[in-house]
C-alpha cells in the first residue's frame, strides 16, 4: 500500500521516556544501578557523565538493544524492551560513529528506511530524502559514499537518516565526540533547531558541557551507574556538589595530577 508523503510538517506527535529503577548487570558487574528519571514529550534532555559511567548502556536500553536485569524503561506507554514497540513508536538513534551503511551512497542510506517500510513509491521516497538532506544542507553529498565524508558530515548524514524516519523520539549518542569546537557548535545548533523544526523529543548522551547547558531543557548526570543529579541547566551552574563541579569544570592541577590518583585507586 502506498502512503502519500507530505514533506512538511513532520509528524508532531511526540512521546516521553520513563526510566524506572533500571539495573543492568553484565555477569557480576553492575553497570547501571537503580536508575530513574523522566524525559517529557518534546523536550531536549541531556544525559552527562564520565566515560564508563553507563550512559551508552542506558541509551541502548531505551532503544531496546539491551534488556534490563531489573526495572523498566517505557517509551510513551510501551515497554522499550518489547520488540513490538519499535513498530509502534518511531524512534531514531544517531550513533556515535554514525553507523552509516558503508556499501551504500548517502542517498541510499537515507532511502533504506522508507524503502524497507514501503512508505510510498520511489518519487515519494526521493522527496522525503531530499527534504531531510536539505534540512542539514547535505544536498551535494547525496551521491557520495560514507568513506568520502568528513567526521562532521557523517554525523549530519546520520542525523538526516534519522529525520527520514520522521521520529517521535530522537536519541543521540555523543553527537559531538571527536569533532572540533566549530563542528560541535554546528551539531549543537542542529539538535536545537530540529526540536523547533520537527517537534521531536530528544535525548542526548554527551560529555559536552556547552552542548548540555546551552540547549537542554533538563540535564541528568550519571556517575558509576547511578543518577547523581537531575535538573534544569541553571541548577548545574549553581551546584555545590564537588563531584559535579569537578566533572563540569575540571581544573588542571599539575601538583596533584588525576592520573596519580587513578593509580592509587587501582592499587
Amino acid at each position, binding site marked *: 500500500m502506498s502512503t502519500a508523503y507530505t514533506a512538511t510538517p513532520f509528524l508532531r506527535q511526540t512521546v516521553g521516556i520513563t526510566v524506572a529503577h533500571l539495573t543492568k548487570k553484565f555477569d557480576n558487574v553492575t553497570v547501571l544501578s537503580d536508575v530513574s528519571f523522566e524525559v517529557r514529550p518534546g523536550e531536549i534532555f541531556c544525559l552527562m557523565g564520565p566515560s564508563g559511567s553507563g550512559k551508552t548502556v542506558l541509551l541502548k536500553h531505551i532503544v531496546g538493544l539491551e534488556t534490563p536485569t531489573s526495572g523498566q524503561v517505557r517509551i510513551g506507554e510501551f515497554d522499550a524492551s518489547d520488540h513490538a514497540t519499535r513498530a509502534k513508536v518511531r524512534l531514531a*538513534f544517531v*550513533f556515535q560513529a554514525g553507523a552509516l551503511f558503508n556499501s551504500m551512497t548517502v542517498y541510499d542510506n537515507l532511502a533504506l*528506511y522508507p524503502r*524497507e517500510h514501503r512508505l510510498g513509491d520511489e518519487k515519494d521516497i526521493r522527496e522525503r530524502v531530499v527534504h531531510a538532506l536539505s534540512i542539514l544542507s547535505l544536498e551535494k553529498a547525496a551521491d557520495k559514499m560514507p568513506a568520502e565524508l568528513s567526521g562532521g558530515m557523517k554525523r549530519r548524514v546520520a542525523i538526516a537518516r534519522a529525520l527520514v524516519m520522521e521520529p517521535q523520539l530522537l536519541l543521540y549518542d555523543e553527537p559531538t565526540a571527536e569533532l572540533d569546537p566549530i563542528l560541535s557548535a554546528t551539531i549543537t545548533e542542529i539538535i536545537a533547531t530540529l526540536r523547533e523544526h520537527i517537534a521531536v523529543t530528544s535525548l542526548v548522551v554527551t560529555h559536552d558541557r556547552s552542548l548540555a547547558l546551552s540547549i537542554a531543557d533538563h540535564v541528568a548526570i550519571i556517575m558509576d551507574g547511578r543518577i547523581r543529579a537531575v535538573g534544569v541547566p541553571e541548577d548545574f551552574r549553581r551546584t555545590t556538589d564537588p563531584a559535579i563541579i569537578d566533572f563540569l569544570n575540571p581544573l588542571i592541577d599539575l601538583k596533584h595530577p588525576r592520573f596519580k590518583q587513578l593509580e592509587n585507586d587501582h592499587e
Partner: protein
Amino acid sequence: MKQFIAICESFGSALCMLGRSARYINTLPRQFPRFIEQCYMIGYSTMPIVTILCFFIGSAIAQQSGYSMENLGAKQFIGALVGLSMVRELGPVMVAILVAGRVGSAITAELASMKVYQEVDALVTMDIPPERILVLPRLAAVLVMMPVLTVIANLCGWYGGALVCQYTKSISVNSAAYFAMLKHYMTTRDVSDGLLKAEVFGFVVITICCHIGLNTRGGPREIGASLTKAIVTSLIFILVLDYFINDILI
C-alpha cells in the same frame, strides 16, 4: 561442560536466526536485486576457481586410479570411478569447501564488520530485521547456485579425467570408452544425491557464516577471529555431515 553449553547455545541461536529469516520469506520477491547480487557473488565469482580445481581433481583421480587399476586389470572402469566419485562425493564436497572459503569468509567478514561498526544495531533501531535483508537473500542465493556450481564441478572433473585417460600413455583409455563406462554405471539417483548433498552443505555453510558474523562482539580484532571460527566450523560441518548424509543416502 561450559563449552558444551556454549555450543548448544550457538546451535539454538543459529536455529532461531533461521526461524526469523523464514518469517520474512514472503519479502523475497521485493528483495530481488539483493538476491541477484548474492547469486553473482556465490555463483559467478566462485565459478572460475571451481572449474580449475575440479578439473584437476578429476585429472588426479584418473591418474591415481589408472595407476592402481592397471595392476588389477580393471582400467576400463576408470570412467565409472571418476564419474561416480565426482558426482557423489568430490563435486559437492569440493564446491562446499570452496564456497566456505571464497564466499563464506567474505560474508562473515562483511557481517562481522557491520556488527562491530554498529550498522546491524542501526538496522535494528530502524525496525529492519537484519535476518530479512542480510541473511535471507544469501540463503536463497546459495540454494539456487549450489546445484549449478556442483554440475559445473562434476563436468569439469569428468573432462579432466577423460583428458588424462586419453593422453597418459600408461592408461590409454579413449574418451569414448571412458564416457561409455561413466554413462553405464551412473544413475539419476547418483546425480540427485550429489545435488542434495550440495544443497545441504551450502545452506549449512551460509547459515554458520551469517550466524558467526552477526554475533561478533568486541572490536575490529574480533572480525578476524570470527572469520577463522566461521571457516573452521564450516569445514567441520561439511565433513561430518558428509558422512551422515552418505549413511542415509546409500
